[in-house]
């Protein structure tokens, strides 16, 4: 029983990470039909901004921004990723606004490639140990459960972020514009919604979500390398597909489902099949796309596009 509760907690915290990642990807997909492969590099950039560039490899890298008080770290890292996200929008995706979805995906592939190699150039290819917020890795003993503090923080922060994001989308003017644009961008523009602003906001939110993923996952993983963010984004993708592409509640549900599925596979898969966990997850993507193109949790509206 304790074992089971422990597993549930692991699943919920991993699911939180995936759900945040999926939200960042799903938001851009809903509005722009952009399957943003570079989301993983947004996450990596957030992590790397914490350590000093151009230093040699040490067991634990020297912290840069990461040294600061957490109340300064969080906004700074968010700002860095938001600027990066807005820059990619301005210089790559805006000139390609009328391009087809696969071309957009290819462009994001390119952005990902550029950013990953920039990280390689600045920080080198070796994995780097990062001791961020060491205190969070402590465990709380409770009713025989050993609960890492970071898991509680992850779940709580995710809940707060999701509630505030949904309030923002539900009630603010920008929220209404973003939702309308996600449903039918051209019509929204006919009504005077400014494309550049809505897309800018969406990229900014996506950047904040990427920063959140990085800051929440880093204390758990402890080391980063140049491709650190990729798997987190790839699982975000899986979640977006599972949840029905373009639906935000679907992306969140998808994220938690993947978190649960991965944790359960990790625990209950026979040892000789464990290495193939990811292959199962991505095989699932293909199956869902073919069998249930609207995802496992279809939302009523079907996206219309001109």
């Amino acid at each position, binding site marked *: 029983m304790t074992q089971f509760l422990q597993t549930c907690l692991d699943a919920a915290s991993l699911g939180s990470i995936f759900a945040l990642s999926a939200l960042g990807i799903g938001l851009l997909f809903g509005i722009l039909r952009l399957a943003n492969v570079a989301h993983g590099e947004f996450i990596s950039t957030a992590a790397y901004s914490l350590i000093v560039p151009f230093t040699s490899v040490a067991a634990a890298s020297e912290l840069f921004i990461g040294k600061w008080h957490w109340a300064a770290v969080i906004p700074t890292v968010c700002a860095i990723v938001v600027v990066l996200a807005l820059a990619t929008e301005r210089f790559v995706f805006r000139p390609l606004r009328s391009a087809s979805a696969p071309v957009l995906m290819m462009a994001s592939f390119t952005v990902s490639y550029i950013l990953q190699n920039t990280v390689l150039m600045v920080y080198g290819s070796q994995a780097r140990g990062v001791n961020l917020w060491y205190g969070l890795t402590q465990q709380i003993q409770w009713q025989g459960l050993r609960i890492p503090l970071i898991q509680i923080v992850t779940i709580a922060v995710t809940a707060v972020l999701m509630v505030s994001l949904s309030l923002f989308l539900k009630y603010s003017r920008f929220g*209404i*514009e973003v*939702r309308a644009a996600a*449903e039918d961008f051209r*019509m929204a*523009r006919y*009504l*005077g919604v400014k494309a550049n602003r809505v897309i800018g906001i969406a990229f900014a939110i996506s950047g904040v979500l990427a920063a959140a993923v990085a800051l929440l996952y880093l204390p758990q993983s402890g080391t980063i390398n140049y491709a650190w963010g990729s798997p987190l984004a790839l699982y975000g993708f899986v979640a977006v597909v599972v949840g029905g592409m373009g639906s935000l509640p679907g992306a969140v549900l998808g994220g938690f489902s993947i978190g649960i599925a991965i944790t359960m596979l990790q625990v209950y898969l026979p040892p000789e099949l464990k290495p193939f966990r990811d292959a199962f997850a991505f095989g699932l993507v293909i199956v869902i796309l073919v069998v249930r193109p609207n995802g496992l949790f279809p939302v*009523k509206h079907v996206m219309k596009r001109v």
Partner: protein
Amino acid sequence: MRKPHLEVRDLHVSYGQIAALRGVSLHVERGETVCIVGPNGAGKSTLLAAIAGGVAAGQGAVLLGGDPVAGLAPEAIARRGVSLVPEGRQIFSTLTVTENLRLGGFLHSNPGTARWLLNDLMDVFPSLKARASYPAGRLSGGEQQMLAIARAIMTGPELILIDEPSLGLAPKIVDQVYAILAEIKARRGVTLLINEQSSTRILKHADRIYVLRGGQIQLEGRAEELADGEAIKRAYFGFDRESA
């Protein structure tokens, strides 16, 4: 001389290889109701979308009160007092009725204007008021058409472009739609440019009519001159009854 409210000069639009408009010229005076009729694929929707900035013109000019606007983004053209009610309504089905309307009002710099317009419209459209917090996707076809029109008015337009308002609606509902359009026109003095596939009903409501076929204007005339429908029919079907 007074400039026409809308003037289109030698407009060409193509989608890749397909030429949808091939040199369309027309003008709409301030306060007029002008109707464009034409068969499927004539280019009617393309024409309205091009005026509203939704598709790029390959060649030609669109002038609003004498100012060229071709090439501006749709959101910029909306700020110049043009509002489009597109074919098939295109309401935001996941947004509520009120949200659909509020969205139309965001371009006003004074939020008071938008609020006043919203209240005013709820009186004109009681059926929308009763369903204000419904997701718009649950409205009936007629209600959706009303919502699309109301939403267009929320932007405070001087020129409203309406693409096939009768599409998929029962005749009785179509009458209601046209009655509403007449009321709005009487209250706000807007200019209307309406697309329709069939001219039978429109002759009653329009001041002038253009027949569009194959991406070109085939005929232009005042509604009363064309009242018997024969000339329209010939232009519409593209053959000459006499010579047949």
